[in-house]
């Protein structure tokens, strides 16, 4: 049984023991570094197949299913957990250390879940553990954002549970395999996955909450939740056509918000949303090339996105702000961080020889090969958008642009180490794509480095850069301003509270109106009673006994006659 323990459980239970180790000793650091390594070894040395099966009532739970799809996601999840630990080694906050690793462990556990009941348990655990990374900022803003995040994440779990229960009733199984969008239960499961995957209009928890987390928390958050959802969609809804269009919208719309957003970590959250779109398109296309592309893109995306969040985290850590309007010129004092950031930016923009190029081109080729030409146009457009916000805006406004005059120390050693390893991996995957292609779910018959691929991609990127240079030169490029950009979260942060407030106000108006009217009625009634029963009222007059006797006699007489008749 122990030999078949899910790597996720190793990390989760291991994380719970962290508080027992001395807070300031090296022992705790070594232990935290060892956890993802041990869990990864468990995965790497294990046979493929379904293990750790438990019978509960009529259903079989599978705690450890290792196949090609869960392997490639599993590998990058372990890597991300390890890099996250290295990046946060300078932290002495037990809450963040435990929450970060329990969260990573829950996400890994969910990857290896072979049934939807254990998937649900891990799904909720990722939500609950991760919110502490947001609350760990210990600010009023972070508390409120965390609360909103938690409600949406737990809500996704509740919808998943409802879907799973209905599915089990109808089909008699809870196996976590291909479902397809066919009936109500599968629709519910689809929506639950969609919330975590930040589908358009279900997306705003991401841009709302991630930038409020701690410097290290955001790096860890960026890796797991959404890619777990991508994995779940790839497992259960591959080839569902609607995903192609959902994905295409996801790639395009965050682009416009990212241009005008001032908080650079929030820009990265928009860019995360946009990258998820490419993966969702791949799942929707559903061919072997497309699904390979999705898995490969998730792999390289987790690394370069973590790298970008790390570099912005380092900037926030040193300068105390991540606002583009108050940064600039930092390459002078943080040259290493700037360099690593540029590697991340080149990777996400899919420059040849960087990781994004060898994975995104698979999805684009797959979509074009299936003849989705409108979708393909949107994806190429979105690729120019990625270059705009992640390739240029992030490094340009943080490290170059006009000099903010900020002179700070270079990032701490552990941060530089984490960024260095991640940057190395981004380039390694880009230069040797075969290493990543070898572990993809299906055999790969794809050559990223053809003359046509390289030249067309370079044209797209460099002409877009030329556009940027011209816009800046002519002063047409919008300046960064301190601001809040409204998005769909406005509905529940402003509109709904206002409507409730208005309803409450209207309710108060109605209530007071009704009360006023009732009061007037009551006064009227009292006045009438007073008229009849008051001191001068007709019914208040005293009658003589004789008259009363007469009345009684008349009454008796009347009754007598009545009964007789």
């Amino acid at each position, binding site marked *: 049984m122990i030999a078949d323990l899910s790597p996720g459980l190793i990390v989760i239970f291991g994380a719970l023991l962290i508080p027992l180790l001395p807070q300031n000793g090296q022992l705790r650091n070594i232990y935290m570094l060892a956890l993802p390594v041990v869990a990864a070894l468990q995965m790497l040395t294990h046979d493929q197949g379904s293990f750790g099966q438990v019978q509960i009532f009529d259903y079989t739970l599978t705690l450890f299913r290792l196949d090609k799809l869960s392997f490639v996601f599993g590998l990058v999840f372990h890597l991300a957990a390890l890099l996250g630990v290295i990046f946060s080694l300078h932290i002495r906050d037990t809450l963040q250390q435990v929450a970060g690793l329990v969260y990573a462990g829950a996400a890994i556990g969910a990857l290896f879940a072979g049934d939807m009941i254990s998937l649900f348990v891990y799904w909720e655990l990722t939500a609950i553990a991760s919110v502490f990374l947001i609350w760990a900022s210990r600010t009023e*803003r972070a508390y409120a954002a965390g609360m909103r995040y938690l409600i949406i994440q737990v809500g996704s779990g509740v919808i998943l549970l409802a879907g799973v229960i209905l599915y089990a009733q109808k089909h008699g199984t809870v196996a976590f395999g291909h479902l397809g969008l066919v009936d109500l239960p599968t629709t519910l499961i689809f929506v639950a996955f969609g919330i975590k995957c930040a589908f358009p209009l279900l997306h705003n928890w991401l841009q709302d909450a991630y930038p409020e987390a701690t410097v290290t928390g955001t790096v860890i958050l960026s890796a797991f939740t959404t890619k777990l959802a991508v994995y779940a969609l790839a497992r259960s809804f591959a080839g569902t056509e609607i995903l192609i269009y959902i994905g295409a919208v996801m790639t395009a719309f965050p*682009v*416009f*918000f990212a*241009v*005008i957003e*001032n908080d650079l970590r929030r820009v990265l959250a928009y860019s995360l949303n946009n990258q998820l779109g490419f993966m969702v398109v791949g799942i929707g296309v559903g061919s072997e090339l497309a699904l390979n592309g999705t898995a490969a893109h998730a792999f390289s995306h987790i690394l370069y996105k973590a790298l970008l969040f790390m570099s912005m985290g380092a900037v926030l850590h040193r300068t105390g702000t991540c606002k583009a309007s108050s940064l600039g010129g930092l*390459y*002078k004092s943080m040259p290493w961080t700037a360099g690593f950031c540029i590697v991340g930016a080149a990777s996400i923009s899919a420059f040849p020889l960087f990781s994004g190029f060898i994975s995104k081109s698979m999805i684009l080729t797959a979509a*074009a*090969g299936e*003849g989705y*030409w409108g979708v*393909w146009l949107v994806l*190429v*457009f979105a690729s*120019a*958008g990625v*270059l*705009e916000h992640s390739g240029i805006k992030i490094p340009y406004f943080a490290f*170059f642009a006009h000099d903010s*005059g900020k*002179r700070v120390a270079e990032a701490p050693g552990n941060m530089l180490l984490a960024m260095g390893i991640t940057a190395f991996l981004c380039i390694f995957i880009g230069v040797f794509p075969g290493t990543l292609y070898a572990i993809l779910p299906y055999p790969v018959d794809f050559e990223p480095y*053809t*003359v*046509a691929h390289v*030249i*067309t*991609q*370079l*044209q*797209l*990127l*460099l*002409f*877009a*850069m*030329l*556009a*940027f*240079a011209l*816009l800046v*030169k002519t002063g*047409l*490029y*919008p300046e960064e*301003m*301190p*601001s*809040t*950009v*409204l*998005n769909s979260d406005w509905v529940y*942060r*402003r509109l709904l509270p206002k409507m409730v407030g208005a309803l409450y106000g209207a309710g108060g108006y109605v209530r007071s109106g009704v009360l006023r009217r009732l009061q007037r009625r009551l006064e009227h009634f009292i006045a009438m009673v007073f008229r009849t029963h008051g001191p001068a009222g007709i019914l208040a007059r005293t009658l003589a006994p004789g008259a009363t006797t007469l009345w009684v006699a008349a009454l008796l007489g009347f009754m007598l006659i009545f009964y007789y008749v």
Partner: protein
Amino acid sequence: MSTPQNDGDRPQDKRYWLDEPRNVRKVFWLLCAICALLAIADFFYHKHAHFKVEEFPVFYGLYGFVCFVFIVFAGKLLRKIVMRDEDYYDR
């Protein structure tokens, strides 16, 4: 501490290569040159085009340029609709 050729508000800073406007112009012209080379390269290889539009000369370059400009101008327009003060939600 300050040296005569350092100007302005931060005399203790050393001048970086990019601090010279002349060098920034060099970078710009380099970018232009690379773009020109890429555009010319378009006529010397076979495109495995999936769609007709890809066969248009320098399609990717032009499309990238137009998309970029469109995104920036659309963003400027979007600002008018969705931009609020920094403390909008805190009030």
